[in-house]
């Protein structure tokens, strides 16, 4: 019934991981640097830190009327709770990316790929850049996988990231992004 004209991305984890920021970076990259329509939404609880947190991005060449994700093409899960929430919603064309350092139960209805996101972040700097490592991984994956073709390009993401990072963190964030990207390619 529903012709897939949208690229739908879910970024799920724990409040404080910076998922909303990378959602914003992805959406802004698509909307401002690739001439597409993009909507980024977020869902969070009353706690700023620690509780379940989710950011969604929908990207399309057409108008995005319904703002939230209907059938995710790409899910990033950075906590066991968020992994559990999406493990059964991964269809044959979608992809679940998870942090293999922290997620132990890994049964999934579709394709799931783990990366050592936490340890990479800590080795490079600290947990502060967890989100940027993850963003780099997503950017890397989009190069090789047609089903997430609507995902913004490396260049657009880089521009968007620079625009959304205070000067004192710019180099660190870019390095983290680059490191994540290289984990894939």
């Amino acid at each position: 019934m529903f012709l897939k004209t949208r690229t739908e991305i879910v970024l799920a984890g724990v409040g404080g991981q910076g998922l909303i920021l990378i959602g914003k970076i992805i959406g802004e990259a698509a909307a401002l640097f690739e001439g597409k329509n993009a909507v980024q939404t977020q869902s969070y609880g009353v706690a700023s830190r620690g509780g379940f947190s989710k950011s969604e991005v929908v990207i399309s060449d057409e108008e995005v009327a319904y703002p939230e994700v209907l059938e995710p093409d790409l899910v990033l899960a950075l906590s066991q709770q968020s992994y559990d929430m999406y493990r059964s919603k991964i269809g044959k064309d979608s992809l679940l990316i998870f942090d293999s350092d922290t997620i132990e139960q890994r049964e999934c209805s579709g394709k799931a790929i783990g990366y050592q996101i936490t340890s990479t972040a800590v080795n490079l700097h600290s947990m502060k850049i967890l989100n940027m490592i993850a963003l780099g991984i997503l950017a890397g994956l989009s190069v090789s996988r047609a089903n997430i073709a609507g995902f913004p390009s490396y260049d657009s993401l880089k521009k968007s990231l620079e625009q959304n990072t205070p000067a004192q963190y710019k180099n660190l964030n870019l390095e983290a992004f680059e490191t994540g990207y290289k984990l894939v390619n």
Partner: protein
Amino acid sequence: MSKNIFDYIIEDRLPFFWCEGCGNGIILKSIAQAFADLDLDPKNVVVVTGIGCWGKADDYLSTNSLHVTHGRALAAATGVKAVNPDLKVIALMGDGDGVTIGGNHFIHAARRNMDITAIISNNFNYGMTGGQYSGTTPEPSFTSTSRYGSVEPPFDICALAKAAGAPYVARATVYHVNLLEKYIKNAILKKGFSVVDVINICPTYYGRFNKLKSPVDMMNWLKDNATTKLEEGNIYNNKFAIGEFANEDKLDFSTKYARIQKNARELSAHLEQDLSGK
């Protein structure tokens, strides 16, 4: 040409609607006299009033006025003052308006140090609605809602204002009119939040319920119970200390905010963005 009270009070609108012997007229006359002595231009004066007998005071004034809801005079006055710090903003409130329903606005206007003069007609009860007890009714007075005597201790408005940070706090009564005029003038001249707690008489309700039958009885009550020895004046025992309780210089909100306005563009550029992207 020197001004007089009728440059501010519209004589055609007299007599006042207040009951015989009510001291509100005395307070309003003192305010107009202060305006005249300070040669204020009526267009630069905004009188903000709340609800209650004293809330009707603006009906007789030829200055700008804003008559608002019960208890909110200081909040509305805050909006006026914040937008145009050159205006003289005077809030007229009763004890119910000013420190009971509006108590939160009162302490915060004091804390924020808005350059507003609050003149409180404190007659220890809600006159307009029939003499119910308020947040300043002395214990154990009788009112239409405390027929067996009030069991709630009253606020001492001056102590409250001072504790909340008001740089000018004074108390007079409608019997001690010279002091009243002087304090109102000092309050208007003070840059910052200034409070004059005016002990007023309500012969119709408070007096009648408390064996002070006539306006003259009530005036004598003020005369007998007021003291200029501040240490003796204890509002909780029906003794009123009259005098100035605070008179200091503190930067007011608008002066401080003007500095922020001046530097905001520069400051804004240096604000650290929130990394979380909230």
